[in-house]
Protein backbone atom coordinates (compact mmCIF):
# COMPACT_ATOMS: atom_id res chain seq x y z
CA UNK A 1 0.00 0.00 0.00
CA UNK A 2 1.34 3.35 -0.94
CA UNK A 3 1.05 6.32 1.35
CA UNK A 4 -1.44 9.01 0.39
CA UNK A 5 -3.89 11.34 2.13
CA UNK A 6 -7.27 9.63 2.04
CA UNK A 7 -10.94 10.49 2.42
CA UNK A 8 -12.23 9.58 5.87
CA UNK A 9 -15.53 9.30 7.59
CA UNK A 10 -15.65 12.49 9.60
CA UNK A 11 -18.25 13.38 12.16
CA UNK A 12 -18.37 17.00 13.19
CA UNK A 13 -17.75 17.31 16.94
CA UNK A 14 -20.92 17.49 19.02
CA UNK A 15 -19.32 18.47 22.27
CA UNK A 16 -16.25 20.48 23.19
CA UNK A 17 -14.29 17.46 24.33
CA UNK A 18 -14.58 15.96 20.83
CA UNK A 19 -12.11 18.56 19.52
CA UNK A 20 -8.38 17.97 19.50
CA UNK A 21 -6.80 19.75 22.44
CA UNK A 22 -4.26 21.51 20.25
CA UNK A 23 -3.80 22.32 16.56
CA UNK A 24 -2.38 18.86 15.96
CA UNK A 25 -4.19 16.15 14.03
CA UNK A 26 -3.71 12.98 12.04
CA UNK A 27 -1.75 13.65 8.84
CA UNK A 28 -3.42 13.29 5.44
CA UNK A 29 -6.99 13.50 6.73
CA UNK A 30 -9.34 14.39 3.86
CA UNK A 31 -13.05 15.00 4.26
CA UNK A 32 -14.03 16.66 0.97
CA UNK A 33 -13.37 15.94 -2.71
CA UNK A 34 -12.31 18.42 -5.38
CA UNK A 35 -14.29 16.88 -8.25
CA UNK A 36 -16.85 19.68 -8.21
CA UNK A 37 -14.22 22.16 -9.41
CA UNK A 38 -13.89 20.44 -12.76
CA UNK A 39 -15.43 21.83 -15.94
CA UNK A 40 -13.42 19.63 -18.27
CA UNK A 41 -12.39 16.04 -17.72
CA UNK A 42 -9.18 14.43 -18.93
CA UNK A 43 -9.84 11.13 -20.67
CA UNK A 44 -7.01 8.71 -21.35
CA UNK A 45 -6.82 6.76 -24.55
CA UNK A 46 -5.11 3.52 -23.53
CA UNK A 47 -4.42 2.70 -27.18
CA UNK A 48 -2.21 5.73 -27.55
CA UNK A 49 -0.65 5.75 -24.05
CA UNK A 50 2.83 4.26 -23.94
CA UNK A 51 3.35 4.71 -20.21
CA UNK A 52 6.00 7.44 -20.32
CA UNK A 53 4.44 8.90 -17.13
CA UNK A 54 5.07 12.51 -18.06
CA UNK A 55 1.45 13.38 -17.20
CA UNK A 56 1.97 11.73 -13.82
CA UNK A 57 5.15 13.73 -13.24
CA UNK A 58 3.56 17.09 -14.03
CA UNK A 59 0.15 16.76 -12.37
CA UNK A 60 -0.03 19.50 -9.67
CA UNK A 61 -2.62 17.49 -7.76
CA UNK A 62 -0.96 14.09 -8.05
CA UNK A 63 -4.23 12.56 -9.18
CA UNK A 64 -2.70 10.54 -12.02
CA UNK A 65 -1.39 7.18 -10.90
CA UNK A 66 0.41 4.31 -12.59
CA UNK A 67 -1.70 1.34 -13.53
CA UNK A 68 -0.61 -1.69 -15.55
CA UNK A 69 2.26 0.17 -17.22
CA UNK A 70 -0.14 2.95 -18.16
CA UNK A 71 -1.96 5.55 -16.11
CA UNK A 72 -5.34 6.23 -14.56
CA UNK A 73 -6.92 9.25 -12.92
CA UNK A 74 -8.51 9.78 -9.49
CA UNK A 75 -11.49 11.83 -10.59
CA UNK A 76 -12.44 12.56 -6.98
CA UNK A 77 -9.56 15.01 -6.81
CA UNK A 78 -8.82 15.99 -10.43
CA UNK A 79 -9.56 19.69 -10.97
CA UNK A 80 -9.40 19.46 -14.76
CA UNK A 81 -6.49 21.87 -15.26
CA UNK A 82 -5.48 20.15 -18.48
CA UNK A 83 -1.73 20.09 -17.84
CA UNK A 84 -1.71 16.32 -18.46
CA UNK A 85 -3.24 16.71 -21.91
CA UNK A 86 -0.74 19.47 -22.78
CA UNK A 87 2.15 17.40 -21.47
CA UNK A 88 1.31 14.24 -23.39
CA UNK A 89 3.42 14.18 -26.56
CA UNK A 90 1.31 11.39 -28.03
CA UNK A 91 -1.98 13.21 -27.42
CA UNK A 92 -3.29 10.23 -25.51
CA UNK A 93 -5.26 12.49 -23.14
CA UNK A 94 -8.16 14.60 -24.35
CA UNK A 95 -10.11 17.13 -22.36
CA UNK A 96 -13.86 16.65 -22.65
CA UNK A 97 -16.72 18.78 -21.35
CA UNK A 98 -17.88 17.67 -17.94
CA UNK A 99 -21.54 16.63 -18.01
CA UNK A 100 -23.57 18.09 -15.19
Amino acid sequence: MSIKPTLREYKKPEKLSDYPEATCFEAGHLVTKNAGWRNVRPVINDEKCVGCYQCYMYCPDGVIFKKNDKVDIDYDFCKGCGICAKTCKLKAITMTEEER
Partner: protein
Amino acid sequence: MGKVKFISGDDAFAEGIRLARPQVVSAYPITPQTIVVERLSDMVEDQSLKSEFIHVESEHSALSCAIGASSVGARAFTATSSQGLLYMAEGLPYAAGGRFPIVMMNANRATALPWNIYGDQRDSVSQLDCGWIQVYVEDAQESLDMALMSYYIAEHPSVRVPVMVNLDGFVLTHTYEAVDIPEAKLADEFLPPYVSDNKMDLENPKNMAFSVGPADNQEFHLLHHKAMLRVADVVNEADTRFQSIFGRSHGGMVEGYRTEDAEYVLITVGSITGLAREVVDELRSQGVRAGVLKLRFLRPFPSQQIAEALVNSIEQGSAEVGSVVQAVGTLEKDISFGYEGTIYTNVNSALIKEDVHVPSYNFIGGLGGRDISKEDIRKCFSHMIGKEKDKIVWIGLGVEDDVR
Protein backbone atom coordinates in the same frame (compact mmCIF):
# COMPACT_ATOMS: atom_id res chain seq x y z
CA MET B 1 20.26 21.60 50.55
CA GLY B 2 22.27 22.39 47.48
CA LYS B 3 25.05 24.90 47.08
CA VAL B 4 24.63 28.55 48.08
CA LYS B 5 26.02 31.06 45.58
CA PHE B 6 25.98 34.85 45.57
CA ILE B 7 24.55 35.58 42.11
CA SER B 8 22.25 37.92 40.16
CA GLY B 9 18.63 37.26 39.23
CA ASP B 10 19.65 36.50 35.65
CA ASP B 11 22.34 34.07 36.84
CA ALA B 12 19.84 32.44 39.15
CA PHE B 13 17.39 31.99 36.32
CA ALA B 14 20.07 30.40 34.15
CA GLU B 15 20.89 28.01 37.02
CA GLY B 16 17.21 27.05 37.14
CA ILE B 17 17.19 26.40 33.41
CA ARG B 18 20.29 24.21 33.71
CA LEU B 19 18.35 22.11 36.22
CA ALA B 20 15.31 21.95 33.91
CA ARG B 21 17.46 20.54 31.07
CA PRO B 22 15.73 22.02 28.00
CA GLN B 23 16.81 20.22 24.84
CA VAL B 24 16.83 23.40 22.77
CA VAL B 25 17.77 26.93 23.85
CA SER B 26 17.23 29.74 21.36
CA ALA B 27 17.60 33.29 22.53
CA TYR B 28 18.74 36.64 21.21
CA PRO B 29 20.60 38.98 23.53
CA ILE B 30 18.94 42.13 24.85
CA THR B 31 19.66 44.21 27.92
CA PRO B 32 18.86 43.37 30.72
CA GLN B 33 18.29 39.71 29.79
CA THR B 34 21.73 39.16 28.20
CA ILE B 35 23.41 37.50 31.18
CA VAL B 36 20.98 34.57 30.92
CA VAL B 37 21.96 33.90 27.30
CA GLU B 38 25.66 34.19 28.13
CA ARG B 39 25.44 31.85 31.13
CA LEU B 40 23.48 29.25 29.18
CA SER B 41 26.05 29.27 26.36
CA ASP B 42 28.80 28.82 28.99
CA MET B 43 26.88 25.88 30.44
CA VAL B 44 26.50 24.29 27.01
CA GLU B 45 30.21 24.82 26.37
CA ASP B 46 31.28 23.22 29.68
CA GLN B 47 28.70 20.46 29.04
CA SER B 48 26.91 20.99 32.32
CA LEU B 49 23.85 21.66 30.13
CA LYS B 50 23.30 19.23 27.26
CA SER B 51 21.21 21.46 25.02
CA GLU B 52 21.27 22.54 21.42
CA PHE B 53 22.18 26.22 21.78
CA ILE B 54 20.86 28.04 18.70
CA HIS B 55 22.31 31.39 17.65
CA VAL B 56 19.18 32.98 16.29
CA GLU B 57 19.29 36.24 14.39
CA SER B 58 16.28 37.88 16.06
CA GLU B 59 13.67 37.44 18.77
CA HIS B 60 11.08 36.53 16.16
CA SER B 61 13.32 33.64 15.18
CA ALA B 62 14.12 32.83 18.82
CA LEU B 63 10.48 32.02 19.46
CA SER B 64 9.89 30.51 16.03
CA CYS B 65 12.82 28.16 16.68
CA ALA B 66 11.46 27.26 20.12
CA ILE B 67 8.09 26.49 18.50
CA GLY B 68 9.84 24.26 15.95
CA ALA B 69 11.69 22.40 18.69
CA SER B 70 8.51 21.96 20.72
CA SER B 71 6.65 20.75 17.62
CA VAL B 72 8.78 17.61 17.58
CA GLY B 73 8.43 17.11 21.32
CA ALA B 74 11.58 18.78 22.62
CA ARG B 75 11.68 20.94 25.75
CA ALA B 76 12.51 24.48 24.63
CA PHE B 77 13.65 27.65 26.33
CA THR B 78 13.95 31.24 25.21
CA ALA B 79 14.44 34.59 26.90
CA THR B 80 13.86 38.19 25.97
CA SER B 81 12.93 41.69 27.12
CA SER B 82 11.05 44.80 26.03
CA GLN B 83 11.53 45.52 22.30
CA GLY B 84 12.50 41.90 21.85
CA LEU B 85 9.24 40.70 23.36
CA LEU B 86 7.36 43.05 21.08
CA TYR B 87 9.38 41.91 18.06
CA MET B 88 8.47 38.28 18.75
CA ALA B 89 4.88 39.20 19.55
CA GLU B 90 3.51 37.45 16.45
CA GLY B 91 4.80 34.18 17.83
CA LEU B 92 3.26 34.58 21.28
CA PRO B 93 -0.36 33.67 20.46
CA TYR B 94 1.10 31.17 17.97
CA ALA B 95 2.98 29.30 20.69
CA ALA B 96 0.05 29.52 23.07
CA GLY B 97 -2.64 28.56 20.55
CA GLY B 98 -0.47 25.65 19.41
CA ARG B 99 -0.26 24.66 23.10
CA PHE B 100 3.53 24.45 23.00
CA PRO B 101 4.74 24.40 26.64
CA ILE B 102 7.73 26.66 26.08
CA VAL B 103 9.20 28.57 29.01
CA MET B 104 10.45 32.08 28.39
CA MET B 105 12.16 34.47 30.74
CA ASN B 106 11.29 38.11 30.21
CA ALA B 107 13.38 40.82 31.81
CA ASN B 108 10.77 43.53 32.39
CA ARG B 109 11.98 46.68 30.68
CA ALA B 110 10.48 49.91 29.40
CA THR B 111 9.33 50.05 25.79
CA ALA B 112 10.44 52.76 23.33
CA LEU B 113 9.74 55.58 22.70
CA PRO B 114 11.41 57.25 24.51
CA TRP B 115 14.23 54.70 24.49
CA ASN B 116 15.05 53.36 27.91
CA ILE B 117 16.76 50.20 29.06
CA TYR B 118 15.53 50.25 32.66
CA GLY B 119 12.73 48.42 34.29
CA ASP B 120 8.99 48.78 34.07
CA GLN B 121 6.30 46.27 33.23
CA ARG B 122 4.79 47.80 30.13
CA ASP B 123 6.37 45.14 27.89
CA SER B 124 4.77 42.04 29.39
CA VAL B 125 1.55 43.74 30.50
CA SER B 126 0.98 44.71 26.86
CA GLN B 127 0.95 40.97 26.09
CA LEU B 128 -1.58 39.81 28.69
CA ASP B 129 -3.98 38.72 25.95
CA CYS B 130 -1.51 36.55 24.02
CA GLY B 131 -2.55 33.36 25.79
CA TRP B 132 0.58 32.71 27.88
CA ILE B 133 0.72 32.13 31.59
CA GLN B 134 2.44 35.16 33.14
CA VAL B 135 4.26 34.92 36.44
CA TYR B 136 6.18 37.74 38.16
CA VAL B 137 8.94 36.83 40.58
CA GLU B 138 10.24 38.88 43.47
CA ASP B 139 13.80 37.78 44.18
CA ALA B 140 16.68 35.73 42.78
CA GLN B 141 15.72 32.55 44.65
CA GLU B 142 12.19 32.68 43.30
CA SER B 143 13.71 33.26 39.82
CA LEU B 144 15.67 30.02 39.99
CA ASP B 145 12.81 28.08 41.51
CA MET B 146 10.24 29.37 39.03
CA ALA B 147 12.51 28.50 36.08
CA LEU B 148 12.13 24.91 37.19
CA MET B 149 8.55 25.11 38.40
CA SER B 150 7.38 26.83 35.19
CA TYR B 151 8.19 23.74 33.13
CA TYR B 152 6.19 21.65 35.56
CA ILE B 153 3.21 23.97 35.15
CA ALA B 154 3.56 24.48 31.38
CA GLU B 155 3.96 20.77 30.59
CA HIS B 156 1.33 19.55 33.03
CA PRO B 157 -1.17 17.40 31.09
CA SER B 158 -4.06 19.56 32.25
CA VAL B 159 -2.35 22.80 31.19
CA ARG B 160 -0.02 22.59 28.13
CA VAL B 161 0.36 26.34 27.80
CA PRO B 162 3.63 28.31 27.61
CA VAL B 163 4.87 30.27 30.61
CA MET B 164 6.47 33.71 30.64
CA VAL B 165 8.47 34.33 33.79
CA ASN B 166 9.00 38.03 34.42
CA LEU B 167 11.95 39.50 36.33
CA ASP B 168 12.12 43.24 36.98
CA GLY B 169 14.88 44.66 34.80
CA PHE B 170 18.08 45.53 36.70
CA VAL B 171 16.34 45.67 40.11
CA LEU B 172 16.11 41.89 39.97
CA THR B 173 18.05 40.78 36.89
CA HIS B 174 21.27 42.51 37.99
CA THR B 175 21.03 42.46 41.78
CA TYR B 176 23.19 39.91 43.61
CA GLU B 177 21.68 37.75 46.31
CA ALA B 178 22.54 34.54 48.09
CA VAL B 179 20.76 31.78 46.18
CA ASP B 180 20.43 28.12 47.04
CA ILE B 181 21.11 26.01 43.96
CA PRO B 182 19.47 22.63 44.35
CA GLU B 183 21.11 19.35 43.39
CA ALA B 184 20.40 18.15 39.86
CA LYS B 185 19.21 14.83 41.23
CA LEU B 186 16.42 16.54 43.18
CA ALA B 187 15.52 18.72 40.20
CA ASP B 188 15.12 15.56 38.11
CA GLU B 189 12.89 14.12 40.79
CA PHE B 190 10.76 17.28 40.71
CA LEU B 191 10.49 17.69 36.94
CA PRO B 192 9.69 14.59 34.86
CA PRO B 193 10.78 14.48 31.17
CA TYR B 194 8.41 16.15 28.72
CA VAL B 195 6.08 13.66 27.08
CA SER B 196 3.31 14.77 24.72
CA ASP B 197 1.19 13.76 21.74
CA ASN B 198 1.16 17.38 20.58
CA LYS B 199 4.07 16.82 18.24
CA MET B 200 5.12 15.66 14.83
CA ASP B 201 6.10 12.04 15.01
CA LEU B 202 7.91 9.96 12.38
CA GLU B 203 5.96 6.83 13.30
CA ASN B 204 2.62 8.60 13.57
CA PRO B 205 2.71 11.67 11.30
CA LYS B 206 0.75 14.79 12.17
CA ASN B 207 -0.33 17.99 10.50
CA MET B 208 0.13 20.87 12.91
CA ALA B 209 -0.49 24.55 13.46
CA PHE B 210 -3.31 24.42 10.93
CA SER B 211 -6.12 26.80 9.98
CA VAL B 212 -9.52 26.41 11.59
CA GLY B 213 -12.46 28.16 9.95
CA PRO B 214 -15.37 29.95 11.61
CA ALA B 215 -17.30 26.69 12.08
CA ASP B 216 -14.78 25.27 14.56
CA ASN B 217 -12.38 28.07 15.50
CA GLN B 218 -13.95 29.35 18.70
CA GLU B 219 -13.93 25.89 20.27
CA PHE B 220 -10.14 25.70 20.07
CA HIS B 221 -9.92 28.99 21.96
CA LEU B 222 -12.39 27.82 24.59
CA LEU B 223 -10.27 24.72 25.19
CA HIS B 224 -7.20 26.94 25.60
CA HIS B 225 -9.10 29.21 27.99
CA LYS B 226 -10.26 26.25 30.07
CA ALA B 227 -6.67 25.05 30.33
CA MET B 228 -5.74 28.50 31.67
CA LEU B 229 -8.50 28.25 34.26
CA ARG B 230 -6.94 25.00 35.52
CA VAL B 231 -3.58 26.69 36.12
CA ALA B 232 -4.27 27.83 39.71
CA ASP B 233 -4.68 24.25 40.91
CA VAL B 234 -1.55 23.16 39.09
CA VAL B 235 0.41 26.04 40.62
CA ASN B 236 -0.60 24.83 44.07
CA GLU B 237 0.27 21.26 43.13
CA ALA B 238 3.66 22.37 41.81
CA ASP B 239 4.38 24.41 44.92
CA THR B 240 3.46 21.58 47.27
CA ARG B 241 5.60 19.16 45.29
CA PHE B 242 8.45 21.68 45.25
CA GLN B 243 8.23 22.13 49.01
CA SER B 244 8.26 18.42 49.68
CA ILE B 245 11.42 17.98 47.60
CA PHE B 246 13.33 21.21 48.24
CA GLY B 247 11.81 22.43 51.50
CA ARG B 248 10.91 25.82 50.04
CA SER B 249 7.60 27.29 49.04
CA HIS B 250 6.60 30.33 47.01
CA GLY B 251 2.86 30.08 47.47
CA GLY B 252 0.04 30.15 44.97
CA MET B 253 -1.41 32.74 42.63
CA VAL B 254 -1.14 35.57 45.19
CA GLU B 255 0.76 36.13 48.38
CA GLY B 256 -0.66 38.28 51.17
CA TYR B 257 1.42 40.03 53.81
CA ARG B 258 -0.45 41.12 56.95
CA THR B 259 -3.65 41.20 54.93
CA GLU B 260 -5.55 39.07 57.46
CA ASP B 261 -6.96 42.06 59.32
CA ALA B 262 -5.86 44.86 57.01
CA GLU B 263 -7.97 47.93 56.38
CA TYR B 264 -5.74 49.25 53.62
CA VAL B 265 -4.31 46.81 51.13
CA LEU B 266 -1.73 47.71 48.49
CA ILE B 267 -1.63 45.31 45.53
CA THR B 268 1.84 44.87 44.04
CA VAL B 269 3.58 42.91 41.29
CA GLY B 270 7.22 41.83 41.32
CA SER B 271 10.24 43.11 43.18
CA ILE B 272 8.67 46.27 44.64
CA THR B 273 6.79 44.03 47.08
CA GLY B 274 9.72 43.84 49.50
CA LEU B 275 9.78 47.60 50.02
CA ALA B 276 6.01 47.68 50.35
CA ARG B 277 6.24 45.12 53.17
CA GLU B 278 8.72 47.34 55.00
CA VAL B 279 6.33 50.27 54.73
CA VAL B 280 3.49 48.07 56.00
CA ASP B 281 5.56 47.14 59.05
CA GLU B 282 6.23 50.82 59.75
CA LEU B 283 2.57 51.72 59.39
CA ARG B 284 1.54 48.84 61.61
CA SER B 285 3.88 50.11 64.32
CA GLN B 286 2.03 53.41 64.05
CA GLY B 287 -1.32 51.64 64.45
CA VAL B 288 -2.37 51.62 60.81
CA ARG B 289 -3.77 48.31 59.66
CA ALA B 290 -1.92 48.08 56.38
CA GLY B 291 -1.23 45.05 54.21
CA VAL B 292 0.31 44.05 50.90
CA LEU B 293 -1.13 41.61 48.41
CA LYS B 294 1.41 40.47 45.83
CA LEU B 295 0.00 39.12 42.57
CA ARG B 296 2.36 36.35 41.47
CA PHE B 297 0.36 35.63 38.34
CA LEU B 298 -1.34 38.09 35.99
CA ARG B 299 -2.51 35.33 33.60
CA PRO B 300 -4.55 33.53 34.52
CA PHE B 301 -5.74 36.45 36.60
CA PRO B 302 -6.26 35.51 40.27
CA SER B 303 -9.70 37.13 40.70
CA GLN B 304 -10.96 34.70 43.25
CA GLN B 305 -7.71 34.67 45.21
CA ILE B 306 -7.71 38.47 45.42
CA ALA B 307 -11.27 38.45 46.68
CA GLU B 308 -10.49 35.73 49.21
CA ALA B 309 -7.55 37.68 50.57
CA LEU B 310 -9.68 40.78 50.98
CA VAL B 311 -12.79 39.01 52.26
CA ASN B 312 -10.65 37.23 54.83
CA SER B 313 -9.64 40.50 56.32
CA ILE B 314 -13.23 41.67 56.36
CA GLU B 315 -14.45 38.55 58.13
CA GLN B 316 -11.66 38.36 60.67
CA GLY B 317 -12.12 41.95 61.74
CA SER B 318 -15.88 41.97 61.55
CA ALA B 319 -16.39 41.89 65.33
CA GLU B 320 -14.84 45.29 65.60
CA VAL B 321 -16.64 48.24 64.03
CA GLY B 322 -14.77 49.86 61.15
CA SER B 323 -12.18 47.15 60.88
CA VAL B 324 -13.10 45.82 57.44
CA VAL B 325 -11.11 46.68 54.33
CA GLN B 326 -11.48 50.37 53.72
CA ALA B 327 -9.60 50.72 50.46
CA VAL B 328 -7.49 48.84 47.94
CA GLY B 329 -4.69 50.35 45.90
CA THR B 330 -2.97 48.87 42.85
CA LEU B 331 0.63 49.92 42.46
CA GLU B 332 1.94 49.23 38.96
CA LYS B 333 4.73 50.09 36.54
CA ASP B 334 2.37 50.36 33.63
CA ILE B 335 -0.08 52.76 31.99
CA SER B 336 -2.60 52.05 29.28
CA PHE B 337 -2.54 55.52 27.73
CA GLY B 338 -5.87 57.27 27.82
CA TYR B 339 -7.24 55.00 30.51
CA GLU B 340 -5.44 53.64 33.60
CA GLY B 341 -3.01 50.94 34.64
CA THR B 342 -4.05 47.64 33.09
CA ILE B 343 -3.47 45.66 36.27
CA TYR B 344 -5.87 48.09 38.01
CA THR B 345 -8.46 47.43 35.30
CA ASN B 346 -8.09 43.71 35.97
CA VAL B 347 -8.26 44.16 39.76
CA ASN B 348 -11.42 46.26 39.51
CA SER B 349 -13.10 43.69 37.31
CA ALA B 350 -12.19 41.01 39.85
CA LEU B 351 -13.64 43.05 42.72
CA ILE B 352 -16.92 43.61 40.90
CA LYS B 353 -17.22 39.96 39.85
CA GLU B 354 -16.47 38.72 43.35
CA ASP B 355 -18.80 41.24 45.02
CA VAL B 356 -16.10 43.04 46.96
CA HIS B 357 -17.19 46.64 47.16
CA VAL B 358 -14.39 48.89 48.37
CA PRO B 359 -12.84 52.09 47.03
CA SER B 360 -10.08 51.14 44.60
CA TYR B 361 -7.10 53.32 43.73
CA ASN B 362 -4.42 53.11 41.07
CA PHE B 363 -0.85 54.21 41.72
CA ILE B 364 1.25 54.46 38.60
CA GLY B 365 4.99 54.80 38.97
CA GLY B 366 8.38 53.30 38.30
CA LEU B 367 8.13 53.92 34.55
CA GLY B 368 11.41 53.79 32.65
CA GLY B 369 13.28 52.70 35.78
CA ARG B 370 12.10 55.56 38.01
CA ASP B 371 12.81 54.58 41.57
CA ILE B 372 9.78 53.92 43.75
CA SER B 373 10.75 55.07 47.24
CA LYS B 374 9.41 54.21 50.66
CA GLU B 375 8.01 57.72 50.76
CA ASP B 376 6.11 57.05 47.51
CA ILE B 377 4.58 53.94 49.03
CA ARG B 378 3.69 55.77 52.26
CA LYS B 379 1.89 58.32 50.08
CA CYS B 380 -0.08 55.52 48.42
CA PHE B 381 -1.34 54.45 51.83
CA SER B 382 -2.06 57.99 53.01
CA HIS B 383 -4.00 58.58 49.79
CA MET B 384 -6.14 55.53 50.55
CA ILE B 385 -6.54 56.45 54.21
CA GLY B 386 -7.53 59.99 53.29
CA LYS B 387 -10.15 58.64 50.90
CA GLU B 388 -8.87 61.09 48.30
CA LYS B 389 -11.05 61.88 45.30
CA ASP B 390 -8.48 61.09 42.60
CA LYS B 391 -8.62 57.41 41.84
CA ILE B 392 -5.65 57.32 39.48
CA VAL B 393 -2.46 58.84 40.81
CA TRP B 394 0.99 59.10 39.24
CA ILE B 395 3.59 58.71 41.95
CA GLY B 396 7.23 59.77 42.01
CA LEU B 397 6.94 62.58 39.45
CA GLY B 398 10.10 64.69 39.48
CA VAL B 399 8.33 67.93 38.70
CA GLU B 400 5.08 69.73 39.36
CA ASP B 401 2.29 68.48 37.06
CA ASP B 402 0.97 71.69 35.54
CA VAL B 403 -0.23 70.38 32.16
CA ARG B 404 -3.94 70.12 31.50
